[in-house]
């Protein structure tokens, strides 16, 4: 089991470890408890959004609208709360909005039969516009709502609550993808949609459900982000889709569908987070950091390819 785990993720895990090793030489602060916690906290939102993205990519699709869904979900939640509605009501409503956004992506994709790139790209604009309209372009803040604050700033058994959320999302999505019939269908549809249809799988339904999960995960991310910032902003998470996609791909999820895991995506997200963190600790120039990030992603993907080739040979 554990051996299998290391074999499966050897390349990418190696990449992460090397990165951590290099980082610990580069910055004395790197291994401090405080900093490690920070890294996990900083990555938690992107990682959860990337878990959702994993479904879309497993289907050989993509979801460019997750950043907009993150923003919209946060706004719906915060606006509801500032208007005095209870958290227990607004949380489900906000998540439902996120699921609905995902549903739209899935529905239009299967209905029109066009590539999700163009559908989710359109919705990226649409949901962003809706978010902007909802708050008239303004950020909406909220300070005195205990459960809302707790989401990203609370502790459970001494562990930061967002880490608890992250762990549950890992468990949940890993379980769904690897243990359930639905997860299996996602892999089959992504691996060979025609074969899936011949096997009697309802491809449309599987696709729509998957995008709904992608939406839901973006929604969870949106709630966490809003809590983290004590406010919701219509411009939040702009470009987060690219980080989420990078996490998936670094983690070995194939853009041609049918291959990838949640654990892989998690490791991918951690690589990006560690990289940003150490560059920030070292105060690397922003422009340089853009270049370094690109180069490191290329190297990481390259290592993975090389490893797979060697394994195949």
């Amino acid at each position, binding site marked *: 089991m554990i051996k299998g785990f290391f074999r499966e993720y050897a390349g990418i895990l190696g990449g992460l470890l090397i990165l951590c090793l290099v980082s610990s030489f580069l910055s004395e602060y790197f291994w401090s408890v405080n900093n490690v916690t920070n890294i996990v906290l900083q990555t938690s939102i992107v990682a959860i959004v990337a878990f959702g993205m994993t479904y879309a990519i497993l289907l050989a699709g993509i979801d460019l609208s997750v950043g907009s869904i993150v923003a919209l979900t946060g706004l719906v939640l915060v606006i509801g709360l500032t208007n005095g509605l209870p958290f227990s009501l607004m949380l489900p409503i906000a998540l439902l909005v996120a699921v609905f956004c995902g549903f739209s992506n899935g529905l239009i994709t299967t209905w029109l039969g066009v590539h999700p790139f163009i559908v989710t790209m359109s919705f990226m604009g649409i949901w962003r516009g809706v978010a902007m309209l909802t708050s008239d372009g303004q950020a909406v803040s909220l300070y005195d709502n205990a459960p809302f604050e707790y989401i990203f700033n609370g502790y459970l058994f001494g562990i930061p609550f967002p880490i608890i959320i992250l762990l549950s999302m890992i468990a949940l999505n890993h379980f769904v993808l690897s243990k359930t019939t639905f997860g299996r269908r996602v892999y089959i549809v992504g*691996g060979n949609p025609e074969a899936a*249809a011949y096997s*009697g799988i*309802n491809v449309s339904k599987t696709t729509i459900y998957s995008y709904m999960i992608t939406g839901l995960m973006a929604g969870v991310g949106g709630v966490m982000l809003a809590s983290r910032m004590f406010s919701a902003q219509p411009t939040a998470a702009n470009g987060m889709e690219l980080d989420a996609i990078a996490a998936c791909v670094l983690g070995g999820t194939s853009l041609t569908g049918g291959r990838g895991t949640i654990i892989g995506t998690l490791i991918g997200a951690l690589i990006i987070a560690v990289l940003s963190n150490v560059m920030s600790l070292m105060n690397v120039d922003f422009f340089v950091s853009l270049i370094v990030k690109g180069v490191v992603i290329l190297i990481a993907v390259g290592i993975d390819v090389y490893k797979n080739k060697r394994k195949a*040979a």
Partner: protein
Amino acid sequence: MSKVLLETVGLCKHFGDNKAVDGLSIKFRAGKVHTILGENGCGKSTTLKMLAGVHAPTFGSVLRNGKNVEFKSPRDSRDNGIAIIFQELSLCNNLTVAENIFANNEPHRFGVIDSKKILSDAEAILNKYHIPISAEIKVGSLSMAQRQLVEIAKGLSYPSDVVIFDEPTSSLSDSEVEILFNIISELKSENKSIIYVSHKMAEIMRISDEITVMRDGQYIDTVNKEETSIDPLITMMVGREMNDIYPSKNESVSEIGDLALSVKSLTNPNAFHNVSFDLHAGEVVGFFGLVGAGRSDVMNALFGMLPYEGEIIIKGKKVTIETPIIAIKNGIAFVTENRKEEGLVLDHSVHINCNLASFERIATRGLINEQAEVSQTEESIKRMNIRVQNRLQSVGSLSGGNQQKIVLAKWLERQPDILILDEPTRGVDVGAKYEIYSIIRELTEKGTAVILVSSELPEVMNMSDRLFVMREKKLVKEFKTKGLTQDQVMVYATGVDSND
């Protein structure tokens, strides 16, 4: 007469103007093997797809146990006890054999998959039907033949009393065919109705009880096997008389020519060892072997798609073939065994595909020569009798046999010196086979050297001058085909008599 389990009444399927199936009425009975026979593109697969719920009929109806049924999806058909093994493989390469067998049919509790049960059930099925494949291996690492067996196991994994096979043997070699026929007799003894489609006449005569012949989408006749034989069936099928399956060699030009290709201890550690042979202009050399013997890998190496050690000498010159481009420059053409993935661009037109390998040569200074391409396409269509609506039709919408002819056509314009044919008649009807054989004869008469890789022993024996047998990635024997018997060849192919 046994019970009718499934019946079609006036079944039609039209794709636009193309009447793929046009008024088909057949009764399928319990405990019988019912073969549907017809030329490429006559609508066999389309018929089966309607029975499997993949296509909805344009007109007509399907009766199940005498009752009208409408299948809206493959699932409906499956729930009605119809199992189908498709011509196109419907497997996922990233999943294991067991996972593929139970795709969308996983044993589960509240949606949670029981992985252990999948494995044990899959092993049970593989064992029951004597299929020698591990259930835990990923399908992507299997050969085509093994995948076909997995496909069969998948079809048999849920309860059914009608089992449909669409050309199951086209990528199987004899040993696997035996496995399949055992499966079929097992099913027969369970009083199931079997619907069978194949182009291999001998096989059809061996296992069928009833045979329905189709032509151009239309129903011709249904006959009992006992009351017929191969020749009248072929006549019914092609609509004219055919005298011989293999065109005879023009003995007047039987002189073999110069050495065209000489291969010396060709080795790829993972794929084949120490392969040496000669090939002369105007000669057909056959390569026979069981599936996985390594024939295709050798051919891939000759064509620059697989690295090798050893020497390749073409027309007396040593060449290093690293890429297909170098191979083509040296006059080699290669019709691969996997036309859909390696031979054609399915989305593109017949026109583009016919010129796939020659458009650069026809071109003048990098500019497409539209006119020459059109005339070359039209000529290919005529010469090879390819059934298309027009040259702009997409190749993906053609039947398998017609696709195969286009793969062949794409090479002929280049007039290769050495033509490698890997399973060129797989899934091709008798009429078209004859046409392909005739083309081989025609080419050799003009001095082309041909390598013919095939798993059909009669085919290699009748068409080649010499025959090489491969076993377990080695060349084990060379024969002259004159006076050779099938048994002699099989001894070497299977290695039963290995102290020779």
